[in-house]
């Protein structure tokens, strides 16, 4: 693709600001990959804000991570798009905080931003027909030498392996495996559950204390914690659960740090070439 062309022309009809950021990111991808990541992050933030304003109500967090999390939990942003948006946010943040972005990383995120923006157009203008052509990587302003090309290949392999490890983490957290047919599993479980329910009802077995369940759900958490019957236990449970959740979150954050270190190590190797 020549320097004057853009993959993001179609975006102008839907959101001029997002289109402008995308084109700027495209321009910087070879010459200044860090700036490319700033622009892509801002592009994702602009898209997330627009989607939140259009489709969410209530207090909308201004923090991009929280905003994307809420959009995903509400089912507005599907898993694949959310993964790409989070990846752009993470690498954008890393660039802002001084971590050098390699060209292959910026190119990978640019490609992801291209796919996300096609989906974004359909979301903000229902019924719009967008047929994304294959992404055309922008040409470098000067030809890349063999050594740099080889290093870019290695960085790309590393990025791929990081993506695979992130995917594994993601799969471990979800309720269903990637190969499972969720509809079929759901049908089977409902069938079994209804059969068991019928057997239990026919046997005259009462359901467990449904009144208590309703009461707990209706109570404010503070009331539960103040309740002398549960106060001790619930405060202890909260402390323990918070501690355990923090451990997992810390572990995930440390892994992201390690990913960045691996990338930085490769870049340092490039500088010594």
């Amino acid at each position, binding site marked *: 693709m020549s320097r004057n062309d853009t993959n993001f022309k179609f975006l102008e009809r839907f959101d001029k600001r997002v289109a402008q950021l995308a084109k700027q990111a495209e321009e910087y991808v070879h010459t200044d990959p860090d700036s490319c990541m700033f622009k892509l992050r801002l592009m994702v933030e602009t898209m997330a804000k627009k989607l939140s304003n259009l489709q969410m109500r209530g207090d909308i967090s201004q923090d991009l991570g929280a905003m994307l999390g809420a959009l995903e*939990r509400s089912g507005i942003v599907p898993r694949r798009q959310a993964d790409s948006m989070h990846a752009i946010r993470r690498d954008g943040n890393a660039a802002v905080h001084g971590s050098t972005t390699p060209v292959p990383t910026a190119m990978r995120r640019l490609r992801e931003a291209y796919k996300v923006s096609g989906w974004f157009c359909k979301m903000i203008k229902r019924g719009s027909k967008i047929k994304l052509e294959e992404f055309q990587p922008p040409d470098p302003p000067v030809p890349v030498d063999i050594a740099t090309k080889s290093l870019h290949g290695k960085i790309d392999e590393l990025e791929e392996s990081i993506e695979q490890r992130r995917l594994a983490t993601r799969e471990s957290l979800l309720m269903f495996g990637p190969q499972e047919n969720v509809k079929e599993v759901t049908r089977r479980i409902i069938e079994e*559950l209804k059969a*068991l329910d019928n057997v239990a009802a026919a046997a005259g077995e009462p359901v467990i204390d449904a009144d208590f369940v309703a009461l707990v759900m209706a109570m404010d*958490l503070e009331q539960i914690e103040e309740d002398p019957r549960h106060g001790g236990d619930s405060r202890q449970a909260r402390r323990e*659960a918070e501690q355990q*959740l923090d451990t*997992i979150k810390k572990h995930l954050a440390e892994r992201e740090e390690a990913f960045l270190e691996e990338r930085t190590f490769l870049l340092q190797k490039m500088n010594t070439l």
Partner: protein
Amino acid sequence: MYESEQLDLATLWFLSARTMAIAGEDMPTVQEAATGLYAQAIIGLNEDECRVAKNAEHIANKTLIDCLSGVRRLPRELAEKVLTGVMMISYSDRSMKPLEVRWASMLASAIEVTPDEFQRCCVNARIIASMLRPRMQAS
């Protein structure tokens, strides 16, 4: 616990949790994310166990009866953690459908918890659910 026992525990957990989520009829993403976080943070499963447990060879041929029988054989503390987690899944969308109550009832019977113990699990589940609940709602 041996590795295979950890894998069995992971399979039991995901089967119990998804049954509760499915019984609730709709399945917000928060329940999905909470399932894995709870497995790793509270039950103590690792990432691989959580992933492998969802492979067809482990989970596809297990029925709910197998699940109840497996939960019954778990050490008491673990079984209560499973029950608490399942109740957390149920609370995460702030409503409870009849089949959800039935599944909770069946699990509680399998584990043979007393009403007091069940109440404690419910309260703990409510607390954990509050930590994982989304703050915004889609219009």
